[in-house]
């Protein structure tokens, strides 16, 4: 039976992991994702799974590596600085072609940064992150419902592609409370794991390894990975569009900024500006084809991120010079509000800015939101 609850995004992830029949969670405390290990320390044992608070992020991701090699569904979660520490392990997991799920509740950076929302780990997430030629399939929730729903999808993708999957979110999505339908209605696919190192009973022994001394064999692995990513590009690219059909300007954003842009689209349309929104759900594979198609149809683009401009590079690659791509970003933990994005939109339509009341010293129109 459907069960509606008011949960934080971080907690929604945990219920999603249980629904995904996750066997093991290994993590380390870091703000703003602490609800994840806290809830998992109760939920995992209660559901017959394993929870360990590891001694470090390095140990946590390597415990994931071991549990995944043993053929079980394993995950870890962290926030920006902790995800940097996991990169070595993630590279090994990708190279060893093991499935796992990694959650990054992004905070302000670089360095220790702060515990406020950020999106500056986009490159790290979608371009590989660690050393070597590999990619993470990357999902970007924008609601607590997504946090719940994406976990089973992430584990299925990880098993299907034998590749790590990242849930890339930000502190707002992780920390906000929102209603979620804990429907527990997910397709259950059986993924046989004949490669698992779980005891060579009645078969020859299995090896989980990422060391290939022979360059031909090493290149073969790289080619195999590439083929997987091309297949993912064809089969797994997911995105959502709002009013793009007649739009003159298409906003492109993911996570919390996409939610904010969704409101901006309504505000802009109330003022007669034809604005749409494309929200990538998979950041890798990226919806390049759809963006290219929109560019071909003469749309302009504006990318909104909580970074100095990372996803905008993928939008520009997709557009490939066919259209203008503007960018608006805030950093440091500052979340752009609808009015400031609306003002960017207005500027691109040659209109003067509106202001929130508190800035209202200049004689111009007041914001309606």
């Amino acid at each position: 039976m459907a069960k509606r609850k008011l949960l934080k995004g971080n907690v929604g992830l945990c219920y999603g992991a249980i629904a995904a029949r996750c066997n093991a969670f290994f993590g380390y405390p870091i703000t703003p994702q602490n609800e994840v290990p806290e809830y998992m320390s109760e939920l995992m044992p209660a559901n017959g799974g394993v929870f360990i608070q590891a001694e470090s992020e390095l140990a946590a991701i390597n415990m994931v590596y071991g549990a995944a090699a043993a053929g079980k569904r394993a995950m870890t979660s962290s926030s920006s600085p902790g995800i940097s520490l996991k990169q070595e392990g993630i590279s090994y997991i990708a190279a060893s072609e093991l499935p796992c799920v990694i959650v990054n509740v992004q905070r302000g950076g670089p360095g220790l940064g702060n515990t406020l929302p950020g999106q500056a780990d986009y490159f790290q997430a979608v371009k590989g992150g660690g050393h070597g030629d590999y990619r993470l399939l990357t999902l970007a929730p924008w609601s607590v419902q997504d946090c719940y729903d994406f976990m089973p999808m992430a584990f299925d993708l990880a098993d299907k592609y034998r590749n790590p999957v990242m849930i890339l979110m930000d502190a707002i999505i992780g920390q906000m409370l929102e209603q979620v339908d804990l429907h527990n209605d997910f397709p259950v696919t059986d993924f046989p794991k004949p490669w698992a190192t779980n005891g060579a009973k009645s078969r020859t022994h299995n090896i989980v390894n990422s060391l290939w001394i022979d360059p031909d064999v090493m290149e073969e692995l790289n080619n195999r990975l590439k083929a997987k990513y091309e297949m993912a590009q064809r089969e797994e690219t997911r995105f959502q569009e709002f009013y793009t059909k007649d739009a003159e300007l298409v906003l492109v954003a993911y996570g919390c900024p996409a939610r904010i842009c969704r409101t901006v689209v309504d505000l802009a349309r109330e003022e007669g500006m034809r604005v749409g929104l494309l929200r990538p759900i998979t950041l890798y594979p990226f919806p390049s084809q759809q963006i290219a198609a929109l560019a071909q149809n003469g749309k302009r683009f504006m990318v909104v991120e909580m970074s100095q401009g990372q996803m905008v590079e993928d939008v520009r690659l997709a557009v490939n010079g066919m259209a203008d791509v503007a960018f608006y970003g805030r950093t440091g933990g500052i979340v752009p509000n609808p009015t400031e994005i609306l003002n960017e939109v207005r500027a691109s339509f040659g209109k003067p800015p509106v202001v929130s009341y508190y800035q209202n010293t200049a004689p111009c129109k007041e914001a309606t939101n």
Partner: protein
Amino acid sequence: MHQEIRIAGMGGQGIMIIGQLLAHATVLEGSNVVWFPTYGPETRGGTAECTVIVSSEEIGSPVSSSPHALIALDQLLLDKFAQSVRREGLIMVNSSLAKAPDYRDDCQIVALPANDIAEELGSSKAANMVMLGAYVQIVKPVSLDSIIECMTEVLPPHNHRFIPLNKAALEKGAQLV
């Protein structure tokens, strides 16, 4: 119905709790809600603020450019956010610890000595409930009964002994406006 509320005060004043009570009561009554917090870096004694958006429609932005209402429990946070309230909005001031702003004559300003009122009822710690009760009475995003019903779920078990006090403070706040 679409209400954006900012609640702000110092850590320990129960800012997050009254925001969460409002959020849970909204869900109980079948509307949509988003709540999100901003903490200072300190575990104790820093500033605390949260945003609650209550709506009969699907909620887009969880971030408010300019809220309909501000509930400020402390002077520092009142000064920080009073200007952000939208024109003709509502500013609720805990006058035990803050002076009502004289620069927002467009807004409805409600000043309640919430700490003193709560103190009379048993503890100044229930000042947050006085403010919430008054807010719910004025704006009516949800009923007081729904707020009370959510207390058991929202308050941690070790604080359930304060529910009678919280209920009294909530109702007192509602009576005073």
